[in-house]
């Protein structure tokens, strides 16, 4: 069983609003036999806001976690797109700007830590699709999604500025994953456009506009649900969907799932273990519809001569 050091990040921690993402990752990783060992005593990566108000402090926040992760000698895996960018960006900056690295080293040393810069930072989507692979996942499917139409939403930071595993503007890993589960990935031209991010808090109107465009695009292309790889995207599209409907006089009822919830469902994991009860727009009908359609197909083929 391959082992990874796991960094849930604030939102996906057991105290965070995206805890269902964490639960579903735990359940899925068990089925596909990947061992995720949570980094001990991790602290917030700093995300975008810290870097915009205290540059050196923000790099030090990231460096502390990277230094702790380096001691484990394993790849660092995170489900959060923001953590993924922050750590990869810190690695790149420490490599490219020796003066910055010198200051960070001094600060780390004050806390009894050092960081050589060797930690490979990966997103859980990369681990599931690259290391585990579509074929292995396909073999383990227990509840085929039977053509369920799923909008593959990547958002921004998992693919940009680009630390590796998929194309920055037209990635394909979610599409391939959906197919492996028996679902149908819908065309989704806005799949790598921004949901509004944390500006949902400070500039709600701007962010709602962006979320509205995504829901509209997913809906017009016939999606029955949408999957995301980021806790913030999920919150914006799910918890603020009512605000979008209010502002734009629309009636969207698009279930927004963490992609691991969909994977877990297809792998036969119990819905409570996936935290499906925590989604604001209930996804259970759409998912069961996939199952029901399958049952219907099966019974109609039985009655055929």
């Amino acid at each position, binding site marked *: 069983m391959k082992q990874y050091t796991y960094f849930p990040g*604030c939102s996906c*921690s057991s*105290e*965070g*609003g*995206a*805890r*269902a993402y964490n639960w579903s990752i735990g359940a899925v990783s068990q089925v596909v036999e990947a061992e995720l060992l949570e980094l001990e*005593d991790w*602290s*917030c*990566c700093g*995300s*975008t*806001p*810290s*870097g*915009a*108000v*205290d*540059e*050196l*402090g923000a790099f*030090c*926040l990231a*460096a502390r976690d990277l230094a702790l992760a380096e001691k484990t000698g394993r790849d660092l895996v995170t489900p959060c797109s923001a953590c993924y960018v922050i750590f990869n960006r810190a690695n790149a*900056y420490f490599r*490219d700007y020796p003066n910055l690295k010198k*200051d*960070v080293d*001094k*600060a780390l*040393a*004050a*806390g*009894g*830590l050092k960081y050589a810069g060797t930690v490979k930072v990966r997103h859980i989507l990369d681990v599931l699709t690259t290391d585990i692979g579509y074929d292995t996942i396909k073999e383990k499917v227990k509840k085929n999604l039977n053509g369920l139409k799923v909008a593959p939403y990547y958002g*921004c*930071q998992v693919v*940009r*500025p*680009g630390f590796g595993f998929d194309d*920055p503007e037209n990635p394909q890993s979610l599409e391939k994953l959906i197919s492996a589960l028996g679902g149908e990935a819908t065309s989704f031209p806005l799949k790598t*456009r*921004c949901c*509004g991010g*944390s*500006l949902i*808090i*400070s*500039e*709600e109107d*701007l962010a709602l506009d*962006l979320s509205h465009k995504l829901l509209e695009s997913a809906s017009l292309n016939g999606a029955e649900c949408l999957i995301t790889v980021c806790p913030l995207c999920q919150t914006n599209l799910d*918890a603020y969907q*009512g*605000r979008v409907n209010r502002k734009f006089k629309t009636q969207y009822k698009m279930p927004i799932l963490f992609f691991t919830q969909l994977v877990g469902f297809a792998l036969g994991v119990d819905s409570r273990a996936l935290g499906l*009860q*925590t989604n*604001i727009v209930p996804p259970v009908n759409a998912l069961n519809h996939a199952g029901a359609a399958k049952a219907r197909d099966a019974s109609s083929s039985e009655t055929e001569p």
Partner: protein
Amino acid sequence: METKVAATDFLAQILSVPGGETLRKCIQCGTCTASCPNADSMDYTPSELIAMVRAGMREEVLSSKAPWYCLSCYMCTVRCPRGVKQTDLMHVIAFMAVRAGKVPATSLTPTMYRLFNHYCSMGSLPEMLFMARFYLQTNPLRAWRLMPVAVNLLKRGRLGVKTRKLSPAGAIQLRTILAEAKSLGGGS
């Protein structure tokens, strides 16, 4: 001549921040602006901001709303044909504006970012506390309008009141590291 000296200083200052030096390569093609989902809400577009930095327009750049409307989606960065790190440049400008006390009063993003950083620096972001404090600090009326969102999240068990805490040793370690960073010129 005064202005010219100040202009050169400002440009030099931005060029010296990691990532800032990439603006030298800008050819003003406007790809960043065309790719930005929020450009139409900004007072100056991303490419205009670069031209303004080069022209030494310190006051206008630092008090611009544009960096606070940046979503950090990195679309500009991946599309730039010259390798300008436009998103990082937005963060550099934001950070310098905070330092210079020039943040625009019309955007709530600086307040939100500072509050976010305050909690991060203690080890973890308590989402509910953070949101509550932000709305109380800026616009309690909006908090009221957002009650349905909060109630839904609470009902689904997604707004925990419990805050994640570091171990006592970890908390001291983090504090020490950040204090050292501050003595090296960090801090906000």
